[in-house]
């Protein structure tokens, strides 16, 4: 396993990787991981034109730059493991293996959308791949994932749950309540921080007295680990170890993936503020693009150009088909607005 950055993962407090030979992806998994990373990238890159065409309303938060963290984490999970995500919600379902068409239709508010047009860009939750919520309330998904862990324990399954959240979300007190709950009851939960260095226009360096969110875990009896979020295999290795630990009933872990957001905080919301240098963005795009790093690593691992090229064209087609599917899909019927509020409506709507 080659290192594309100086940063090998650093373990804090207690060891969650059990041996010196971290779990690695098999060849088929590597292809699947690359496909998912490319799908996120392709999906996100398709959006600006659709937004410009007025087809996608509301604010859109892109995961470009963070694909390795998302896919590395999700590849360590089974289909029946639960995850929760954030307002930056497109990457999580795709990383977990969701079909693109219902996601794209959702962005366009269509009846065929994964959330029937009721969720939109900040809420692309696809339950069929284990997503139980994408919370646009920063930090809101963390307790839900903790509950999914409790549920697995009570029901006696060996499922685990994983909660994605940002560096900004790490300042919500609820994270610490949940770390503690998961620790005392040894819940099978992985707290996964996508630390992209910024919360909207606010640099993490101004809102965290010390830079490592993973260091906050130890005080709650939870092992913390920092990993290079641009390196697919490292994220996979460290998450797999946390997942195994959780499945063995040894409790939660906190993983901090250091990553970077290549785009603005949101497309469609203009915030005039110079909170990061153009230079810095350029440097990341040039040197730390997870797809570029991943492709090089795959070639080195023995995958051929042809093999990768095939994946690339397949993804391109799938994205184009998703866009077409979405554009052709009907809008929801206004009269259906009452649907899905209650599971058991009683005299509703009045």
């Amino acid at each position, binding site marked *: 396993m080659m290192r594309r950055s100086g940063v090998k993962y650093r373990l804090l407090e207690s060891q969650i990787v059990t041996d010196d030979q971290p779990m690695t992806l098999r060849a088929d998994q590597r292809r699947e991981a690359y496909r998912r990373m490319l799908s996120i990238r392709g999906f996100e890159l398709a959006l600006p034109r659709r937004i410009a065409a007025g087809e996608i309303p509301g604010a859109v938060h892109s995961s470009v730059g963070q694909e390795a963290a998302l896919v590395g984490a999700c590849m360590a999970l089974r289909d029946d493991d*639960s995850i*929760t995500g954030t307002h930056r919600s497109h990457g999580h379902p795709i990383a977990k293996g969701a079909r693109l068409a219902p996601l794209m239709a959702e962005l366009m508010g269509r009846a065929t*959308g*994964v*959330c*029937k*047009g*009721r*969720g939109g860009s900040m*809420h692309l*939750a*696809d*339950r069929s791949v284990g997503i*139980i*919520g994408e*919370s646009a*309330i920063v930090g*809101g998904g*963390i*307790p*839900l*994932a*903790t*509950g*999914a862990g*409790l*549920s*697995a*324990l*009570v*029901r006696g399954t060996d499922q685990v*749950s994983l909660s994605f959240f940002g560096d900004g979300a790490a300042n919500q*007190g*609820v994270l610490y*309540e*949940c770390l*503690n*709950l998961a620790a*005392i*009851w040894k819940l099978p939960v992985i707290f996964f921080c996508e630390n992209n260095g910024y919360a909207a226009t606010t640099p993490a360096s101004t809102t965290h007295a010390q830079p490592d969110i993973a260091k906050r875990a130890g005080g709650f009896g939870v092992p913390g680990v920092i990993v290079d979020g641009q390196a697919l295999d490292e994220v996979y290795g460290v998450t797999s170890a946390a997942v195994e630990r959780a499945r063995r009933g040894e409790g939660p872990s906190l993983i901090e993936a250091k990553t970077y957001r290549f785009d603005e905080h949101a497309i469609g919301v203009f915030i005039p503020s110079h909170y990061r240098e153009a230079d810095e963005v350029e440097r990341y795009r040039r040197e730390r693009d997870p797809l570029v790093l991943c492709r090089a690593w795959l070639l080195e691992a023995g995958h051929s150009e042809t093999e990768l090229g095939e994946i690339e064209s397949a993804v391109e087609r799938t994205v184009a088909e998703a866009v077409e599917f979405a554009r052709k899909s009907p809008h929801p019927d206004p009269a259906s607005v009452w*649907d*899905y*509020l*209650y*599971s*058991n409506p*009683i*005299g*509703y709507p*009045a």
Partner: protein
Amino acid sequence: MATTELTYLNAILEAEKEEMERDSSVILVGEDIALYSASGVLGKLDPRRTWNAPISELGFSGMAIGAAITGLRPIVDLTIASFVYLACDQIINQAAKIRFMTGGQVRVPVVFRMSMWHNGANAAQHSDRPYPMFMNVPGLKVIAPATPSDMKGMLKSAIRDDDPVLVFEDNDLWGKKEAVSTDPDFLVPLGKAAVRREGSDVTIVSVAGCLLHALPAAEQLAKEGISAEVVDVRSLVPLDRATILASVAKTRRLVVVDYAHRTAGAAAEIAATVAEEGFETLRAPILRVTTPDVQIPFSPKLERPLYPNRDKIVAAVHKVLH
């Protein structure tokens, strides 16, 4: 129907016990609830069915919601209602919205119980009645049963319901007793008001524990020859507007009684409903007998006069009859 004499508090425990026996996905979460399992009031329980929580209302409430989404039916005991503000982000932004926002991909069968204290010198931070704020949140169900039988039957319905239900309990009801069905499938439906006493001159709509004053008021009025109908709303969301409107259509006069603060409370909604849909039948102003808009003081001398009571209800009825 076989019955047994139960207090309101024991009705809660019986409902929980029966539902936990019936369905292994029902669990309890709350602070200091270890004593339930220890005391055996809930029978022999798998330790994984009761979770004695740290003081982390937001965290464990959200945890219960996540557990509900993934196959359990948690009952969260928030103990005193004034603590619910800590948890209300998860209740409002997640429990009430997540099914809708996911286009029906999930169900949220979770129950939040909380007790409301008054006349106990608990002061402002332990005396709130926050149901009005939740009535304004679509996606929740909100109930406030006033008798042991209703409590048992409605709590059981709430636990079996696939939507989030908030249960508000007046703690001065805890000791009240009545005959309660022992049928393990005894259910009182959510969303139905109960006419506790029939009458023809005036309708008294009572919210939660105010029934303890509304019925004596009706009796007092009967002695004066005034026939009051007493409607116990029981369920605030869904609110049984039809029963209220039908009663007012008959009596043509309405007094609403509620311990909550006056402005934008449950009584306001009931009054507004009748002013909108029952106006033609009304012959007098709709009076609200509520706690005035002031925080609850510690001193019993200051506290006691604030609440609705029999005499205030009787006085309001006299007023609408002129």
